[in-house]
């Protein structure tokens, strides 16, 4: 069953068109990979789904409701949560408070104490349990990336938008991350997963979408998409060795 459906999503910045009539669909329990060269509009599309950027045209439906004009926090309550490509922890909050904020204001709003308790279980899940009380400034890059994921999970979303959460991590950290992402499905979440590393995406994703210059280029099963000559041409600029 379709959880998210973007139809004809268009985003213009002044005279520049960042997204042109992009369609995208996510089914329940699905991990959808979103790839494309730099500047192809992946993050922009993510932001329009999360609601932080209003669309210029097109509609976005989530769980059967039109959310095109909803504010980001409405979408968070409806069940969409996101991570940021460059981690944006709340600097004056401790690690657990960062996550607890998501619990407090997410789908089931809860009090501070309950939220802190839940935050610690989420942090255990992503392997940041021992950093719960630290200042976020003390975290390493990969810990921050995992904090992004933890915060998104804390909202108990139906759909989680992951923006290059594995970029810049070393292979063992990345492997941990992939394991974590795969486990999200078992927790009942659907995932849109943006990554520059095509291999990571193709191993995890059920289906893949390719954007190029703000337009749909191709979509389908990872293997089919990666073999599509248009994709090879536009995205990789040559035969893939991935």
């Amino acid at each position, binding site marked *: 069953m379709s959880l998210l459906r973007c139809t004809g999503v268009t985003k*213009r910045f002044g*005279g520049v068109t960042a997204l042109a009539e992009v369609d995208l669909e996510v089914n329940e329990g699905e991990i959808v990979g979103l790839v494309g060269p730099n500047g192809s509009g992946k993050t922009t599309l993510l932001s329009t789904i999360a609601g932080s950027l209003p669309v*210029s*045209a097109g509609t976005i439906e989530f769980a059967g409701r039109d959310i095109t004009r909803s504010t980001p926090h409405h979408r968070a309550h409806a069940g969409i949560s996101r991570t940021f490509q460059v981690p944006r922890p709340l600097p004056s909050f401790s690690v657990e408070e960062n996550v607890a904020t998501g619990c407090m204001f997410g789908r089931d709003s809860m009090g501070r104490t309950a939220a802190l308790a839940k935050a610690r279980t989420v942090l255990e899940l992503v392997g940041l349990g021992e950093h719960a009380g630290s200042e976020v400034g003390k975290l390493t890059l990969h810990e921050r990336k995992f904090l992004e994921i933890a915060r998104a999970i804390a909202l108990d979303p139906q759909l989680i938008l992951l923006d290059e959460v594995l970029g810049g991590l070393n292979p063992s950290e990345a492997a941990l991350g992939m394991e974590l992402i795969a486990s999200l499905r078992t927790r009942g979440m659907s995932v849109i997963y943006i990554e520059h590393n095509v291999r990571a995406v193709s191993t995890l994703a059920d289906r893949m979408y390719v954007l190029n210059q703000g337009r749909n280029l191709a979509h389908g099963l990872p293997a089919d998409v990666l073999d599509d000559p248009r994709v090879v041409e536009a995205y990789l600029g040559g035969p893939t060795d991935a």
Partner: protein
Amino acid sequence: MSVSSMALAQTLLNGALLGCLFGSIALGLSVKWGHLGVADFFHLSLTLLGAYVTYSLVSEQLWDPFLTLVVTVPAFFLIGVGVQWIFLALKAEAFTALLITFALFMVTESAVSMIWSPDLLNLRPMLADSFTTSLRLPEPLPQLAVQPVDLLALVCAVVMVGVSAFALGRTRSGRAVQAMRQDSEIAQTLGVRVVPLTLAVSGLAASTAAVAGMVVALRMPLSPSLPLQWIGAVVVATMLGGLGRPVGALVAAIVVMMIQNAWSLWFPPQWSPAVAFGVLFLFLAGGPAIRFVRESMTARRLA
């Protein structure tokens, strides 16, 4: 021409010329705010200080007012550099910097009051009659009059704004300043020496306060609390003109003062202080509407 349209023309002319003075003050604020990220209220105090120094040099040392610039411009450049250096040394965020400039604003008012007395000082009686007698415009508008000091304000404003706009838009350093405004890290990697450039921009902005201060001294009686009366017009002009855009600030100052004057001619003048801010609110509210129209027009063109 009837009397009332003459009156309107005169009041608009006066407003435009006073707008030039406020535009000169707004210039420095706009540049510092737009390019250095500091909403520098101390700039208004500097203008006042410039006016007082001019007053003293002219009334006590009998200097020519223009000669005072030889002293005030370099001195203010150094002050501007110094203040910016403090911000850099403190790694002050925009809001912290704003607070510091407000504290300096307060200190300057008291210091001026202490040094020059809180009483009114007026340079005007010391000015030559040729400089204080208003001039009639040449045909076809002989009914309109202007004061020489207002013409001076016009010239100063045009020169300073023109030079600033030229320097920002057309010179290498100016482009570097613009690049810095976009992203100082990237600018740095592109070889822009951010610190000296920042200091220089701050110093130059402060120098404009020296010139504006000279015009103020010639134009109006001085009192230590004068900057409080400028805040409205200057801030509105800065914001309407677009931060960091010298010509915008000048044009906005002129337009706002013209509107304010026209209002005072037709409507009760006691409401005029709200006019400038009313214009600002309309503009801010109109901003999204304008953007919407522009976007849909581009869309149509692209389609």
